[in-house]
Each structure stands twice: as C-alpha cells, then as structure tokens.
C-alpha cells in the first residue's frame, strides 16, 4: 500500500480524558501500522487547543464525571471532532469517551448532560459500579473475534435503532442489557476502559482498516506476545 501522508492518530484531550492507560490505544495502533510499513503519527490535542479536522483516527479515553462533562462541552463548542466524524473519520472511544459520543449521559449530580450525538445511544447512571474482567462476542460482521478487557464504570447504556451493539457479553456488565459497546458507521465505543486495544489486536486492525483500506499482514512473530497475553487472559477468566 502506498500512502504518502502519514496516518494521523489524533488523541483527543489527554489532559482531561486519560485516567488509566489510555495511551495504550494510540501506542497499539501506531505499532501495528508501523510494523506494516504504514507511516503514522500520534497527535495529542489538549483541551485548550482546537481539534484538527484532518485526523484519520480519533481516540478518546476515560475520565471522571466533571472532566467528562467539561470535555463534552468543549468538543461541542470546538466542532472539530464532529466535522471530522461527519466526513467519515474513524472515532474510537473507551469508557467515559464512549458515553460522551451518545445523545446524553449522566453527569456528576446524576442529571442528564447533552453528548456529542455521534452514536445513537443514551446513558445514565446504574445502581452499582461494574468492575472486573469482560469477555464478549463481537458482532460477527466485524470479524474481530472475542473481546477481552477490563471495565470500571457505573454507566448503563441503551442503544437506539441507528447504533449496533459491538458485542454480546459472556462475562461482565457492559451496557447493562447483555450487550457491550456500540458502533455506527466508523464511530465505535466500548465500556472496556484504558488500553482496550492491547488485548484486542483484531479490533485495532478493524480501526486501521476503516481508516486505510485492506491491511498487509503483520511480520511473523511480531504478534506472539500479544497473542499469548490474550490467550492467557481469556483462559484465566474461563476457569
């Protein structure tokens, strides 16, 4: 594949939305692109900067209640992310970032806060915090296998008709109704928090594929450790 311009991984508001290892998603995408010979760069955009309109993949991390509300307000006012998503850029969001993509979510005091409206979902606050390992079967049409990761949230999410569930849970809480995450076009969100792509290289490749088209194979052995980790974690919770 020939690509003259580097793939632009745009990390949205790491100063507000980065609670626990969120950098991992940018690093995994960067590594998997680079090992395939695709030029790639990571652009970190703080909350006092405009969001560039020309990113290829936008990444959003987790955050506490107040930062989540502040970040949403700024992104709506800035408009850059909405414009990019409108022209088909890939958006990948975890945890608080996922809730922000929807029509509304529960704010710090429980009152609904208007979201970015990029996913047809609505979220509120559940009775209990969901903390632990998640295993879920991803929508077969995405062809990425099982989802494995860690959730830590108190959100409950309902999907509207325009969004599809990313996966069906076999372990963990996810959206709260047996489904986990959601996607709509090239906008995809999950309750898995932090470095969700580390144990899900298939999902990382789906995002790269959406952004660049068919991918060359990874060099042999470059995935050995990641696959061992993935197998170990899936086996550990299957016991």
């Amino acid at each position, binding site marked *: 594949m020939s690509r003259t311009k580097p793939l632009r991984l745009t990390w949205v508001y790491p100063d507000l939305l980065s609670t*626990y290892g969120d950098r*991992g998603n940018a690093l995994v995408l960067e590594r998997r692109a680079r090992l395939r010979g695709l030029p790639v760069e990571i652009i970190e955009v703080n909350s*006092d900067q405009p969001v560039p309109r020309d990113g290829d993949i936008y990444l959003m991390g987790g955050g*506490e209640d107040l930062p989540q509300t502040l970040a949403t307000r700024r992104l709506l006012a800035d408009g850059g992310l909405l414009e990019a998503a409108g022209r088909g850029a890939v958006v990948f969001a975890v945890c608080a970032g996922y809730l922000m993509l929807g029509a509304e979510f529960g704010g710090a005091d429980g009152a609904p806060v208007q979201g970015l409206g990029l996913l047809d979902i609505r979220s509120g606050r559940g009775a209990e915090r969901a903390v632990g390992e998640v295993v879920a079967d991803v929508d077969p049409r995405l062809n990425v296998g099982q989802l494995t990761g860690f959730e830590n949230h108190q959100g409950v999410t309902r999907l509207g008709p325009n969004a599809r569930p990313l996966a069906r849970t076999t372990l963990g809480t996810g959206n709260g109704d047996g489904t986990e995450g959601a996607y709509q076009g090239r906008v995809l969100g999950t309750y898995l928090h932090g470095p969700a792509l580390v144990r899900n290289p298939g999902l990382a490749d789906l995002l790269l594929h959406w952004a660049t088209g068919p991918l060359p194979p990874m060099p042999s052995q470059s995935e050995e450790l990641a696959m061992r980790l993935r197998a170990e974690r899936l086996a550990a919770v299957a016991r």
Partner: protein
Amino acid sequence: MDENTRHHSKLPMRARVATTVGGAAATVSRLAGKGDGSVIGGVISLRLAPDLLSLLAAGRQVVLVTGTNGKTTTTKLITAALAPLGGEIASNVYGANMEAGLTSALTHAPDARVAVLETDEKYIPAVVRATRPKVVVLLNLSRDQMDRAAEIWLLARRWREALGNAQDCRVVANADDPLVAWAASSARQVTWVAAGQRWREDSWCCPNCGAHLQREGDDWSCRECGGRRPPVSWMLYEDEVIDPTGRATKLDLALPGRANRSNAVIALAVAEAFGVHTGQALRELRKVTSVAGRYTQVSRRGVDVRLLLAKNPAGWLEALDVIAPPPAPVLLSVNAQGPDGRDTSWLWDVDFRRLRGRNVLVGGERRLDLAVRLEADEVALKLVNDIDEAVDAARGVASNLEVLANYTAFQQYRVALGRVQ
C-alpha cells in the same frame, strides 16, 4: 500484653478487652507466619469496639500521613525526625494504613504521647474525625489502583471538606501538586512545601474549575479562576533543603532518589511543628537506610540485589529514575492481586523507553502484560519465572541486580530473599 496496662486503665472496659484480644490475635498471626500481624489484630479489635480508634488517639499528638506515593517512607522519616523529642512514638511501620492498622499501631504503644500514622487516602475524612490530628501531611495525588481506589478529583474534594472542618489541625502539603494544594487550601493553617512533582499526567487541569492549567517549571496557575501555586516556606532544591529562614542545608540521605529527598523535606517541616530543629532532625533522617524491605540491598549467590517497590505510574516513574545505570540488569515484576489492583492498565501510563538497550528481565504473575507493554516501547526483554532465574541471568553480566516490583510481587521476592527488612 503486660506493657499495655498503664494506658489500658484509661480505656473503657469494652475497649480494654478489644485491645487485649486484638493483640493476642496479632501474635498468633505472626507465629503462624501469615504476615506482620498488624492488620488482623486491628480488625478483631475494631469489631469489638468501633470507636476504639478515637479512644486510643485521645490525649496523643497525632500526625497523619497520606498521599498516593511515599506514605510508608515519609511515615518512617517523620518518626525518625521526631526522635529528638525522646519517648516512644506509635507508628504503623508496616504500612497497614486503614482503620484496623491504625488501631493496632496505637494499641501496641499505649504509652506513646506521639503517633505518626500512615493513612490510606480514602480513610482521611474518617480518621481525621476520629483522631483529631495535630498535623496532617498531604504528599501527592495521582492515579492508583483504579479498580478499588476512588477517583482522585473526588478524593481531593473529600480531603478538602474534611480539612476545612478540622479544628486545631496544621496541614503540611506539597504546593507543587495542584490537586493537593487545592485540597489543603481549605485548612486553617497550612505549611506549604515545594516538594516537586515528577508525575503530571493527573494535573494538567485546574481542580477548582477544570480549565487547562498554565505550567512553567514547578509553578502553576489557572487563567480561568485565578487559582495558583501558594507561596512556600520549605523547599527542596536539588540535594538541599531550604528552610523558612532561607538557609540551605545539604540533605545527604542514605535513601536514594528525588522522591525520598522530597519526603525528607516534608518530614523536616513536620519536625519543626513539634519544635525539633532541622539540624537535629536531619541527623536522624540520614540514619534511615531502608523502609520495610524497600531499598534494601541483599546478596544472593554473589549478586547484590536491591529491591524497589512502586505501585502505580507515578511511583514507577520515580523508581526508574533511581535504578542503577548499566550494566546492572533490571528485573521488573508485576502482579495483579487485590492489593495491587486487578487491572494492569496503568502499565501503559509508564514511559519505559529509557530502558531501551538495557538488560531487562520481566517477572511476576502478570509478566505477559508487562512484556507486551515493553514491546510497544521497543524495549528488548527476557521473561523469568522467579528471583533466582533473574539472579542467574545477572551473574557474569554485572555484580548487581536492580529489582522494581509492585506490591505483592515485591512481597513475594522479599519472602524469597528471607524477609529482608
């Protein structure tokens, strides 16, 4: 438990029974080899008398030490710095820092007039109410074991409320950490210390209003709400402490690293609140060489092994600054048991790139998580199963091995090396 008798007589009967039973259980726990015994004794005591902590703290001068990192070391340093006062000091030296551990520490030192207590961040409001401390030390606040710890903005808010309500309490706080400064500024009396802040990923935004902070060196301010770093009276400057009179004194600690120099300056500020002079306190601080096995050097099959403990990204960042230069191999080890946090996501917040080109060994129950993390930072590594495999890998390459591990991984190595202190 004969030595308890004097203070015991001042406690109500139910509390007296509780401390005696708890003490016995701790002895049994130690004899059974189940640990240092400090928590189990306290848990049993608390079930028998829930207000025991405030009864035990009454009439004593209490120092509470909290923060994400450096609690155990700073508690030990403050205890050392207060030695010139003479007399026994009660302290939870093994880091059992929730109510049960605190109760246990006070029970075992019934005659101590001074208590220096490491306190878990979440328990600060309750423990401040129960113990009416003379001094509360706030070290730093950063992401830590997110599966069980509270989110840190929320934690800062709770500290702020608790300290705003505490009478006659002096707060000694790190002015360089915006979250800590915001939490401390509600207190009536604050001694501000410029203790530095190596890890900044949790304080790019104003804790008061959420705006992106202006930061230059250690200084910080908020353009939106006008919040800013308070003027300090104590300062760490390279290897020197600058006291409130402006005099600079070399620290010359035995403990390594910038983080410990910063902990020492905090200890000196606490000592001053007790009327202990800097020179006297510093002589005691220099004698501290290890803290519950941390920083200890032990020889294993001819290799000098040094153990460093760090539990979260900020701690790992500071620890990676401390490790000896090549050719010493570095053993990194991570578990994810309950006390470690069951979620290893935090590994992705640590920048490992400085280990490129070094001899890196990876161990612990979650070594694959760590290996994948290092691979992403292009750090070559070798997986090992235990400390002896790492020692064998070090032999012939170097005379020393640096070990950096998180909580239970550290304890496993400590036991394997013969429960080093």
